[in-house]
């Protein structure tokens, strides 16, 4: 099969897949929603244990809707860092949304303003699902919106449950909750180490952070790691 024919076929197939009904999209997203729900609950428990007011924990999930960024910000706070460093850490992790935002912008309906609002439903999981459902270079907008809205609900409800459960659990240090943060970061990191480039970025990022940490104010080691990540990514 020649390349143009193959490309044409894949567009056709993508078109057929894009007509999936809402309930089909929801069914495909259900296992991911369960994982997001549990992730949200663990974030809620740890955030309350790190002495954040429960309302602010739920508000953060409702407004930020980005697990690894929220987890990173919380890790900084739990480690005694400042609010500015925590915001900085979370924002650095969310920089990738600029790139995914450009990719999904073409697939969303409406004018620029509406599309930038709808783009708020992008997280790693909904973006990945929309890429899989779409044509090459053109993620499926409807899959992004339906999956994103579903996962948003799971994330916020999970956080509420976790924030309610948190105070019941007891003394954070005795429960080893300070070790939960590095354990959580490594658990988030591991599935990303799928190629040589990712491994290189991880080793480089950790090495630079460790090299800078004794001499620089908090936040700078993370900025250094971000630069190394961008540099080594390809």
């Amino acid at each position, binding site marked *: 099969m020649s390349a143009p024919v193959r490309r044409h076929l894949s567009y056709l197939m993508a078109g057929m897949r894009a007509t999936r009904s809402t309930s089909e999209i929801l069914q495909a997203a259900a296992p991911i929603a369960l*994982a997001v729900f549990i*992730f949200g609950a*663990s974030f809620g428990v740890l955030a309350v244990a*790190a002495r954040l*007011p429960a309302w*602010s924990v739920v508000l*953060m999930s409702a407004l930020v*809707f980005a697990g*690894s*960024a929220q987890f990173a*910000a919380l*890790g900084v*706070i739990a480690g*005694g860092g400042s*609010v500015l460093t*925590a*915001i900085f*850490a979370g*924002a*650095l*992790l*969310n*920089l990738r949304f600029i*790139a*995914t935002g*450009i990719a999904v*912008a073409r697939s969303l309906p409406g004018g*620029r303003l509406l599309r*930038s*609002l709808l*783009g*708020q439903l992008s997280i790693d999981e909904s973006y990945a699902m929309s890429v899989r459902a779409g044509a090459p270079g053109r993620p499926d907008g409807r899959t992004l919106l339906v999956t994103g809205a579903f996962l948003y609900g799971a994330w916020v409800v999970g956080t509420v449950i976790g924030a309610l459960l948190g105070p019941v659990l007891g003394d954070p240090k*005795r429960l*080893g909750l*300070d*070790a*939960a943060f*590095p*354990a959580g*970061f*490594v*658990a988030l990191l*591991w599935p*990303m180490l799928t190629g040589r480039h*990712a*491994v290189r*970025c991880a080793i480089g*990022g*950790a090495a*630079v*952070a*460790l090299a800078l*940490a*004794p001499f*620089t104010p908090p936040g700078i080691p*993370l900025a*250094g*790691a971000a630069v190394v*990540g961008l540099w080594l990514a*390809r």
Partner: protein
Amino acid sequence: MAGPLALALVLGLASLSFIMRATGPFLPNLPSAVTERTTGLAPALLAALVAIQLTGSNGILHLDVKVPAVIVAALLAAVRLPFIVCVVAGALVAATLRALFHV
């Protein structure tokens, strides 16, 4: 953490995240060489966060019960166990070692 400080944290992170997700429709298509580079951000930052969590207040590596906790979490993540299992196992390892050895 006091309420106003927590609110500043939430609103600061939320507004930056909002802006980053909102810029897509207003930006030209970046060359794929540029967008591909952002895929390196998450692994580099998460690895850096692990490393920083293992340093003491002086910024130098401080080897304590968090190290075995991280190793156990990494092993469990490597065999594809869910996030929560890795986190709970890491916390349990730290708590158990602390209770046993008073470290």
